[in-house]
Every structure is written in structure tokens, then in C-alpha cells.
């Protein structure tokens, strides 16, 4: 068995398909390509394809990862060539590399995500002040609705690593850059931060882009491909 990790982009209209739809789409593309995807054991055998972290519906990304377990070795180059042509427009393989089989599951390694958010009419000017205020709080309690038990209180403050307003230089003007905790240890959703900033997510348009996902190694955030060991 072999394990390959791909970094991929999810762009254009495909930002409108959900996490589960994406997984199904990837699996079908792999099946068309004929690469020997490994299947789990047991009664309900599933293809061993694991996406690092769900991307919010409506967001684009150039920093998605996915682990694929293969029954036989396929070189990264060969894999890339065979799979790329089976992907719908909007999905792009950016990098493919081998990782050790024994490494823990991909989702458990993800610690943080980098987002940028812009708005068609530019960001509200008051955000600079609001961000300062948010970051000075020792806790930021929000209500999170869970499927089973109504809602629960969550403190978002420890999940916010940084919030910065940056200039684009282009015609889009400024954007908000957010480095947020994500993954199995808990995290903040970009929409929650935007709500805290007073945005009405149900009616106001915004563009959200995820540019990177990070592992945490020795206190530092590192992109998965920086940690290739084999």
C-alpha cells in the first residue's frame, strides 16, 4: 500500500459544492482514472480517500489537501497526469507527494487555516477598530448550533491567531486576512468571525478564499509540503 497526498484548488463554480459532494466527486474522478485506490476492510468497504478539512460552502481555495491510499505504487508524476484529466473544471491538482503510511490521519494533523475575505464594495472602514477590540478581549463567547443538542456556548478567542486588514493593490482594495484554528482540536469558522464584526452573512455578499492549511510543528505553522520526509 502507498499513500499519496495532494494539494489541490477548488475554484470557480465548484465553490458551491459541499464537502461530501467534493469527496464523491474526487472518488469518482479517481475511479475513472484507473489509479488503484485502496478500499477499507469490513462489510461496508469505502475508498480510502481522506480530505484534510471541510471548506465552507461558497469559499474558494488553493490550499486543500487530500490523502489517497493506493493498492500499488503510482509515482506522483503518473498520478498527477492520470487524475488531472478526470477532474471537472474548478478542481486542480497543485502538488502531489508521497507520505509515510504510518503517519496519523490527515485531519488530525491540521491545526490552522489561512483565509482572506473581501467584499464587492470594499471592507467597512470601521473594521480596523472592531478588530482591535475583538483581539483585546480575553474571551469571545458565541452560540453554536449543533444538530442534536440545540446550541452550545463556545469561546472563539483561543481559536483566533491573527486578524489583519491588508491592501491588495489591485482593484479589489483591501481584504481581511484571518489565521484561525481549525481541525479536530476545535476551531473558529470564518463566518463566525465575520458575524462578530457585524456582517449579515445571510444577505451581504463576500468572497472567501482559503489560501493555506497548516500543521503545527515545534510551535510553528508549517504547510504540509514543507514537511515531506520521504
Amino acid at each position, binding site marked *: 500500500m502507498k499513500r499519496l497526498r495532494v494539494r489541490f484548488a477548488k475554484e470557480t463554480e465548484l465553490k458551491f*459544492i459541499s464537502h461530501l459532494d467534493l469527496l464523491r466527486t474526487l472518488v469518482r474522478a479517481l475511479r475513472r482514472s484507473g489509479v488503484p485506490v485502496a478500499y477499507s476492510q469490513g462489510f461496508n468497504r469505502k475508498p480510502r480517500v481522506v480530505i484534510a478539512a471541510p471548506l465552507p460552502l461558497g469559499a474558494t481555495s488553493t490550499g486543500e489537501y487530500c490523502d489517497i491510499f493506493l493498492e500499488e505504487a503510482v509515482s506522483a508524476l503518473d498520478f498527477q497526469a492520470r487524475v488531472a484529466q478526470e477532474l471537472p473544471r474548478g478542481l486542480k491538482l497543485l502538488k502531489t507527494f508521497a507520505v509515510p503510511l504510518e503517519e496519523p490521519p490527515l485531519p488530525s494533523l491540521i491545526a490552522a487555516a489561512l483565509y482572506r475575505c473581501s467584499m464587492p464594495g470594499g471592507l467597512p472602514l470601521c473594521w480596523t477598530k472592531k478588530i482591535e477590540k475583538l483581539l483585546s478581549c480575553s474571551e469571545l463567547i458565541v452560540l453554536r448550533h449543533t444538530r442534536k443538542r440545540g446550541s452550545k456556548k463556545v469561546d472563539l478567542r483561543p481559536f483566533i491567531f491573527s486578524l489583519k486588514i491588508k491592501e491588495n493593490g489591485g482593484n479589489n482594495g483591501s481584504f481581511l486576512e484571518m489565521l484561525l484554528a481549525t481541525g479536530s482540536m476545535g476551531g473558529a469558522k470564518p463566518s463566525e468571525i465575520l458575524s462578530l464584526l457585524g456582517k449579515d452573512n445571510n444577505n451581504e455578499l463576500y468572497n472567501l478564499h482559503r489560501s493555506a492549511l497548516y500543521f503545527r510543528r515545534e510551535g510553528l505553522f508549517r504547510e504540509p509540503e514543507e514537511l515531506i520526509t520521504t
Partner: protein
Amino acid sequence: MAKILFTKEHQNSRKDFILVLKDKLQNILPFVTKPGRYLGNEWNAVHKSVSNVTVRFLLAYPDLYEVGMSHLGLKILYDVLNRQEHIWAERVFAPAPDMIEMLKRNNLPLFSLESTTPMADFSFVGFTLQYELNYTTILGMLQLGQVPLWQRERGEKYPFIIAGGPNAFNPEPLADFFDFFVLGDGEEVILKIVDIYSSWKKQGKEKYLFLKEVAQLTGVYAPSFYKPCYRGVSFTGIELLEPSAPAVVGKNIIWELDGASYPTKPLVPYLEVVHDRAVLELFRGCTRGCRFCQAGMVYRPVRLRSPEKLKKMAREIFSNTGYEDLSLLSLSSGDYPDLLNLVRELKEDFAKERLELNLPSLRLSPEKIDAFAAIQDFGKGGLTFAPEAGTQRLRDVINKNITHEDIVLTAQKAVEKGRKSLKLYFMLGLPTETDADLQGIATLVEDILEAVYRAAGSRKGLRISVSSSIFVPKPHTPFQWIAQISRDEMWRRIQLLKSYLKKLKNVSYSYHDPEMSFWEAVLARGDRRLGQALYKAWQKGAYLEGWTDYFSPSYWQKAMAELGLNPDNYAGYKGAKDDPLPWDHLSCGVSKQFLWREYCLSLEGKITEDCRDAFCQGCGLPCFSAPATKE
């Protein structure tokens, strides 16, 4: 005025409009549920350059994306049309209410998924008629498409609004909204229609002349050429207004399925749709002769695909889609000759790819369970049976030829092979049904329970779910002369069955909304006067009525009352042999004499054997095996 769509300036301004539409759509999609429904760029979606095509065809399905994308007919037509270089076929489905809200708020028309072109800009808009309660959705879609609803009010510049599918065999309630209907298999005649259109368009003549010409094709029914006549509430017959149109419209039949085109590059949706899998159509038609079944009559005769062709198709579909499951589809897949061998070979061919085979409509029997369990994982999920009726007497009436003992033994074997839950489907209100037949359902369920307990060795984890729906008498079946039971009676029988089943442990009971079955019957047997009712019900808010969340009988009740029409005259219609029926001028090839004979036999409780096992029953259609006719 006539050809305004085809002037250069007009085309350019439409092009700009479409770009604006595309842009606005991007701003709408973040705010609707399941935006994946409206993307139009699924794997295998066909995109062509507008300047290279001369005919634009919009395939419209009057239900949500998830339902429409599961429909084989749509995939077949999408494929057949798009194989032609000069035709571009696109899709549109009924937008969900939240999307409608957004379209209205932004003043946008309903558009095709692939190219975001407004419905009104197409040459043809073709609807599929699968279910009566979708009719109001058709009106909703036309209006959102900014196309005038009534056929006589649509000017020369609007598309031809056409339809096909099983309900085209009685489309009278829709007749005033459509230019024409296409009866029977659509995949060949559709290209002939487009051919006539292309030469008609070049000549720049009026729409009427196109209709006249196209009505010469087999299976094309242009309702404006036929005028229904009434005396009081009764329908008395059809007057032919256009002498060149046929007095009786026949249907299209593809005789050689192996030679017919098949979608081996079907669309692969992103969203999970109702049937999210590859589909292999084994054969068309069914000769079992269940007397309530419209599909069993209108899709005759039986035509098979060869195993070689099917295996080749399966390979192509797999490599073009990557699907995990393959469904072997037909009205009664267990009747495919040597199905077992086909399944075994497909299993072998796709062992490496782990393709799961799916066999719906199998008509399970104890022998089949043994045979299939031997060649594939029999699964742990639910298994569905459709005994339809609770007693042998009533099953004989409807010609559902399975025995009590077989049903019980089949269920027992299914549990022995590892199944944990069984679903049993019945119809209530079948002709001649009495309370003893409802008691019979309970007895059958009880016998099954006992047998499966014995088979499983314990009662733990076993479940039987019984579901029922009310029988809807359909046109072109032997029961077209039968009255549906009244709504009060529907509820009484449901309550009675409920009380019988309550006594049984591990059995749950659910029923299909009887109001829906009632209005389904009204529309199925409707005449052209119901067009006004349809219009009024739609105006009051009827839309997506196949969904219990959206269905409201009050729209219909009020609409009919305002027009002075009594719905019970339709659902409760009980016919005499020589009564003219509103669909008599539309023929599926099965003769009225045959249907009447079957109707009489049913009342005597006599069965009619499958003509493939016995002799030709003389249904009126020629078919592959007609060795001897019944004396």
C-alpha cells in the same frame, strides 16, 4: 415580427443579457440552499458554441434537480440530441422556492443550466410528464421562463412547448398549454421533429404550418387540431379540426433496442440525487399484465437488449463516470432471460473496480433469492416486496400472480441470507376490495413475521415496514372504467388497516397521503376542461405538489369549485363499455377491446397469464413472440 429572435442585433443584445444573467447568478447562489442544483457544469455536461448550433433544445423536468437528474428518459434525450452537431440540448429543473424568490427579487427569468440562456430563447422546451401532481410545476416554470402559458397566446417568437413521457397518453388537462405531445419512445422521432423544424425555420413560415407538418409523424399529437365535445358534464368525443391530422394518434416504438442510441456518457451530478448511480436499461415493456399498471400497458411490447450490448454499455458508462453502483433497470428485471448469467458476468467484468450491482424491480421469488445470494453479497439493508394486495382473491383480480406461500417463503429466505428489515408495499381501494382483504394484509404480515422469526432464530433487530397508497385508476389500463373509492372511504380503510397492524410487534405502518392519490386520479382521468382548474390552482400557489411539504389540496378544491367542476366526477368516474373516453384518440397500441376483456376477467377474479409463458393474449400489439393467438 415573426423571426425577431434571429436578427443580428437582437442576438447581440440577448448575448449581453445572458452575460448579465450569469453575473447576477453568481451573486444569488451564495444565498440559496443547495446551489449545486443550478451550476450546469457537471461531469459530462455538454457545452457547445452558440454560433455553431442552429437548434436550441431545452429539456425541462417539472420537479427538483435531485428528482429530474435521476430520470433515464432525460439522459437519453440529452444524449441523442447532443450527438447531433447542429443541436444543443440543455437542461432546466424546477427551481426550489428559495431560488424562485431570488429570481423574482432580481427580476431574472428561468434559464438553462448549461449556458444560462432564458427559457424563452430556445427553439423547443420539452417537458417530461411522469406524474400528474407535477403539472402545476410546469406552469410555474413557464411563467418563470417568461413564456405565455396558453398555447394560443404564444406568439410566433416563442419556443414550441412540447412534452413526452407516460402521461402523454392522456395529457388533456395540459392540452391548452402545449404545442404538441410525443407518444411512445422519443429517441428517434425527436430528431425527425428537429429536421422538420430546421427546414421550416429556413422558410420562415408560420408556427401553424410547422405543427401541421409535424402532426404527420407517428406519435405526434398537436391538441389544437382536436376539439373535445361535451354534453352536460359528460365527454362525448373529439372533433378533428385539421383534416390532415390523424384521427387516432399512435405511438413510437423502437423495435431494436440494441440499435438505439444510449447515454453511455451520462451526467454525473455533484449533489447526491435520488438515484445516484449508473443505469443499464435491460429492456422496455412488460408482459406481466398487472391490471392496475399503466407502465405495463403503454410501454408494450417487450424489447430486449442483448447481454453483449449491455456489457459493452456498462464498460463505457463506467469509464465515463466512475460510478460506484450500477442499476439494472426495467419494469420487471427478473424477467430478463438469463438475468443470472448477466449479473454473474458483470460481476466478473467489474471485480477489480468494485462495482456494486443493483437490481430493483426483481419480483423476488424463493428461487431467485437462492440464485442471487449465491453470486453476490446479498446485503444487510432493507428489501422491498410489492404484494399489492392481501388476499389471493384480490391479487387474482389485479392479475398480480404471486402466491401467499411464495411471499412468505421469499421473506424467510431473505432473512436467512442476512437481511434485517423488509418493506411491504400494498395498494388500498383496489377494485372489489373488502374489509376481509385488509384483514388479509394483516394475516400476510403476521405469517411473514412468524417465518422470519423462525429463520433468524430471534426477534431482535428484525423490522417489517408496511406502506400503502390508494389505488389510482389510470387511462389505458383495464381499470380505466373503475371508480376510485371516495376520500372518506380512503381514510376509513387506512384507519382499519392501521388498527389491524397495531397488534403486531416489530411492524410499522405508513401511508401515502390519500388526498394526493385523489387529485392524481382526477388529473390522470381528466379532460381538457381541467386546464382552467390547473391554471387556477397554480395561480393560488400550487407548485412542486409531488412533495408533501408543498402539496395543499385546498388550492385544487377552490379552483374546481370556482369553475363549477366536481372533482368526484373524474376520480369517481365509472364507465360503461362504449363510453367515449377523453383519451380515446391517443393509442398506445393496446386495444380497448383487450382492456375491456381484462376488466371483465378481473371482476370474475380470473387471471391472465404472461404471454411469454403461455400464448399471445391479443393485446393488440405485434411482438417478438406471437406463436399462437387465443381462440
